């Protein structure tokens, strides 16, 4: 038994580790991993020790939670401890770490930088998963349930990751989980077998049990193996399940490496599905910026028949500054690109580019779109770019756009969809009165995953009444699924119908860290809308939901749908008033842009975690616990006694004491010098037992008498079992004959629980006696 316990604990710890390990791909550094491993080991060790010390399962979990919480708090916010004990300041410090993590998660897409808040939250999450898995698998011995926390941990990565989750990340935890199931099932089934064999002491039965055990185990094993194989095979065989979840991660396949340069299509067909994903690297880079905007390759305003295409624009004006607003030099960053395989004349660079350095190769910046072009392909270059950081209040006051840069194309809406788009955008932007709030409303509307589904597979194209293919935007409106191109197009069209000039930008997501450089792969290709704001130029928005998308720029972040009701504005204004303080405290990371809305949102979440609310919640929980303290105590004592019972006699005595104590609560006392038979008569008459239950009572006392006074080996398990049922039936009937007040009192104030607390001082301080 002990060895099994060891094994199941070890398996649980390994399964937890393997399930949380993929999280390493979500963050740029892995320094949190040793801490997580330590916490998992700590939980496993505590579980082992706890289960050795006490039979109360809840106590074991409590021990794990308390000690783990203490260790985590001590290691992260230990400086707030007073005399090795947490203080209210500790809660605040932990809270601020959580807020920091929330901020980081809101701000960055994977892989996000690692800071103390993220580490703290990760370790807490790992600890929770570890405790849950250990409790279910080892403490409660039902590892089947432990699959849920494991799956949760796995899904954290799967749902947030950018790249494909390798198959092993799924297979290893599942294999460990199945091993836990197997270990426990064997142990439990083995117990049945021996119990039966001992009771009936018939060799046939015992042999039969062993056979049954073997066939059951084999059957379960086969079933489990088949289940995993099917889980792996079915998605691979079925063609129409868009993201092949198990084998491809979030729809990105690992295959199809391409050599040489990567061409970039100048047209984007909205009706084309994006099933073919190329993992080959396009370029690698380093940047001096803290945030990493997407790398833009080109922008276009020309949309026709469901396709975006680049107009034959020629911007032969080298070194022209373009129509940019003046940018604070402190918000200029340099990106050094190498291993560039992007075919000329395109260059990937964050927008807006201020200067380009590529060792003598001629280059130009398109005056209208801001694209950088070169005459020939270069493998490495440096780009100086600006971080546009207009503040939302300024943007709101920017006024109507009337720059020369804006062409008719920037406001064109396809005729076939005009009515639909107008109606759709009016609906989305209702109540908003300035371009920024409208844009944010549109963006948030599209990012709402409860309305729209991100999918690389667009499915069948819909047809209208006449059987013609629907215009892609209408198609998107109907199917509500698509990838970045559909979302970006929808945002552009919706913005245009509101009079905001908008165009399509095409490029790459910022890529992932590999070593000390970021690697951008072909599969990072992305499209996003740019909206024109008078005086600020083209500003990026991010309407594509899901992880397969960029981070919205700071000015475009507003608390969820709150912006649509106009509440966002008020909040942001009050925040601007105190802007200085909140920005100063904001972060060391917040770089260029103070982010008023984001702060507000976070603070509003943070307000829910004030000390007062926490204390209130704790008080509520404590109050509930106090109200049910006695029943819970009685229940725990009963449980402990029943579990501590080794022989049938002890089990029977426990049941009987339970009954007498319950009858005592109901007013049927058991005087000291009364024998079982006398007590039985007392219960039969006093409890108004009917004939059936009186017989049951006689059976109970006969069994008890036998167990107490006859030879111990004569009491059989069947008798103990029947006693259990008889007692339950008797309890029910006697309960019915009592007044409800008595029953309530017997429930809330059971003597079994009360006496425990009453005798506690004596047991704690035996010397006082």
């Amino acid at each position, binding site marked *: 038994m002990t060895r099994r316990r060891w094994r199941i604990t070890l398996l649980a710890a390994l399964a937890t580790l393997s399930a949380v390990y993929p999280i390493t791909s979500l963050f740029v550094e892995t320094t949190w991993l040793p801490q997580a491993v330590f916490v998992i080991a700590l939980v496993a060790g505590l579980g082992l020790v706890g289960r050795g010390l006490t039979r109360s399962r809840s106590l074991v979990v409590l021990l794990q939670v308390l000690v783990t919480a203490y260790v985590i708090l001590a290691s992260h916010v230990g400086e707030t401890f007073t005399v090795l004990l947490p203080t209210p300041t500790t809660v605040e410090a932990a809270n601020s770490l959580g807020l920091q993590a929330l901020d980081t998660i809101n701000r960055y897409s994977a892989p996000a930088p690692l800071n103390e808040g993220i580490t703290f939250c990760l370790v807490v999450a790992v600890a929770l998963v570890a405790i849950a898995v250990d409790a279910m698998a080892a403490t409660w011995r039902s590892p089947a349930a432990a699959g849920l926390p494991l799956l949760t941990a796995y899904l954290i990565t799967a749902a947030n990751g950018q790249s494909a989750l390798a198959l092993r990340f799924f297979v290893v935890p599942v294999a460990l989980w199945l091993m836990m199931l197997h270990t426990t099932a064997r142990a439990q089934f083995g117990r049945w077998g021996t119990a039966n064999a001992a009771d009936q002491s018939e060799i046939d039965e015992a042999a039969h049990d062993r056979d049954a055990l073997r066939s059951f185990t084999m059957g379960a094993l086969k079933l489990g193996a088949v289940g995993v194989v099917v889980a792996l095979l079915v998605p691979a065989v079925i063609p129409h399940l868009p993201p092949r979840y198990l084998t491809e991660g979030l729809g990105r396949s690992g295959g199809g490496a391409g050599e040489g340069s990567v061409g970039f299509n100048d047209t984007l067909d909205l009706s084309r599905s994006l099933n073919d994903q190329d993992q080959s690297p396009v370029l690698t880079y380093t940047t001096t910026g803290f945030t990493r905007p997407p790398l833009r390759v080109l922008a276009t305003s020309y949309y026709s028949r469901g396709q975006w295409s680049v107009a034959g624009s020629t911007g032969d004006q080298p070194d022209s500054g373009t129509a940019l607003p003046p940018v604070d030099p402190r918000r200029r960053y340099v990106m050094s690109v190498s291993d560039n395989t992007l075919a000329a004349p395109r260059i990937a660079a964050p927008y807006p580019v201020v200067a380009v350095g590529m060792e003598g190769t001629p280059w130009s910046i398109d005056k209208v779109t801001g694209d950088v072009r070169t005459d020939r392909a270069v493998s490495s270059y440096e780009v100086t770019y600006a971080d546009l950081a207009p503040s939302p209040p300024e943007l709101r006051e920017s006024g109507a756009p009337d720059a020369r840069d804006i062409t008719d194309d920037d406001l064109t809406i396809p005729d076939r969809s005009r009515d639909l788009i107008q109606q759709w955008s009016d609906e989305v932007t209702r109540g908003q009165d300035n371009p920024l709030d409208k844009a944010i409303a549109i963006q948030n509307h599209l990012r709402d995953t409860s309305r729209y589904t991100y999918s690389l597979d667009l499915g069948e194209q819909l047809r209208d009444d006449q059987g013609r293919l629907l215009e892609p935007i209408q198609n998107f409106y109907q199917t509500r699924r698509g990838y970045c191109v559909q979302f970006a197009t929808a945002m552009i069209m919706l913005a245009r119908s509101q009079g905001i000039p908008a165009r399509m930008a095409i490029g790459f997501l910022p890529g992932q860290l590999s070593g000390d450089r970021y690697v951008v792969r072909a599969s990072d290709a992305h499209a996003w809308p740019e909206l024109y704001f008078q005086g600020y130029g083209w500003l990026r928005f991010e309407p594509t939901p899901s992880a397969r998308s960029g981070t919205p720029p700071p000015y475009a972040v507003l608390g969820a749908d709150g912006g649509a009701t106009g509440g966002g504005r008020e909040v942001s204004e009050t925040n601007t008033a105190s802007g200085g303080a909140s920005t100063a405290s904001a972060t060391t990371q917040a770089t260029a842009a103070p982010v008023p809305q984001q702060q507000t949102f976070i603070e509003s979440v943070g307000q829910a975690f004030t000390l007062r609310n926490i204390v209130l919640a704790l008080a509520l929980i404590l109050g509930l616990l106090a109200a049910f303290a006695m029943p819970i105590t009685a229940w725990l004592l009963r449980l402990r006694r029943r579990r501590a019972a080794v022989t049938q006699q002890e089990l029977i*005595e426990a049941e009987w004491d339970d009954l007498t104590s319950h009858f005592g609560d109901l007013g049927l006392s058991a*005087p*000291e*010098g009364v*024998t079982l038979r006398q007590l039985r008569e007392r219960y039969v008459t006093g409890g108004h037992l009917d004939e059936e239950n009186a017989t049951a009572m006689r059976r109970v006392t006969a069994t008890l*008498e036998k167990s*107490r*006074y*006859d*030879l111990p080996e004569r009491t059989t398990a069947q008798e103990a079992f029947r006693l259990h049922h008889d007692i339950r039936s008797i309890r029910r009937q006697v309960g019915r004959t009592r007044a409800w007040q008595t029953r309530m009192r017997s429930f809330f104030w059971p003597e079994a629980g009360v006496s425990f607390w009453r005798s506690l001082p004596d047991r704690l301080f035996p010397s006082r006696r």
Partner: protein
Amino acid sequence: MGTTTEDSVTTTDTGLGTTASPGSSASPTKGAADLGLIHDVAERLMGAMTSVIEGKPDVVRTTVTVLFAGGHLLIEDVPGVGKTMLAKTLARSIDATVRRIQFTPDLLPSDVTGVSIFNQDARRFEFRPGAIFANVVVGDEINRASPKTQSALLESMEERQVTVDGTTYTLQAPFIVMATQNPIEMEGTYPLPEAQRDRFMARISMGYPAPSAELDLLETHGASSPLDALTPVTDAETINRVVHAVSKVHASPAIRQYIVDLMTRSRSTTALRLGASPRAALHLLRASRAFAALEGRDHVIPDDVQVLAGPVLAHRLMPSSETQLARRTTAEVVTDLLRQVPVPPSAR
């Protein structure tokens, strides 16, 4: 008047010193009480006794219990309720040697134990066994004998042997002394001292019969004594086996604890001047075993102990002056004890 009436019903196997040791008698099942045998013998004995002693099933039951437990019985009641009849009935129901001793103040110890007489022809002392040399000894009016004679009887009761002139003679088994005494007639009596009362396993009192039983009694006993029609239903050897079988009845640790608890409480209670002796505990356990066997159980339960606590304990206890002043009997004190002492296992 040193009258020693001899009421020898049968004379089978009265050889001196022959002992059928309980251990040697074959027990049908090793380690477990032979409930079938006990039940069978008890049925026949009680059937026979009930045909004579009518309307007193409890008294009959206790008598048989004491017989099976290998103890001695003290029957105490007013004259004429059938004390001697009870003793004689039991004696007759068993095919064994029976003697009856009528105790009088001038009865000598040698009348009870026996005496060595010089045989002129053989030129040596010969031992002539006294009345005690029998399986069943009925001692009538035991409190009328002098303390010296009483003690001669009581010593042999406990040790089951008699020592005369330096020679030890073992008494036969089974050996049961049924003594009667009259509690009311105090003139010219020597009440048994506590130490001697302690040797009786149980004391019972007959009590008056119920009116209907008395009516029946007048009818049946009017013509001839039903005792005459009584024939033995069992023999000494069987009783030996029964006694041995009873000793195998299981008494769990809880039961032994209960008995010890009762004894301890009797020694500490203020209602008593003298509590129960360890011998009382032993007797109570043995009697409980026999009673359980009579009930058809092979294990003792607290109810057995409670039923027998009164008969087994009451005559050994000495009431304190407060109890006497309150005119409470020791039997009532025992009832109180039973009410106070928790039945194990109750301590958690």
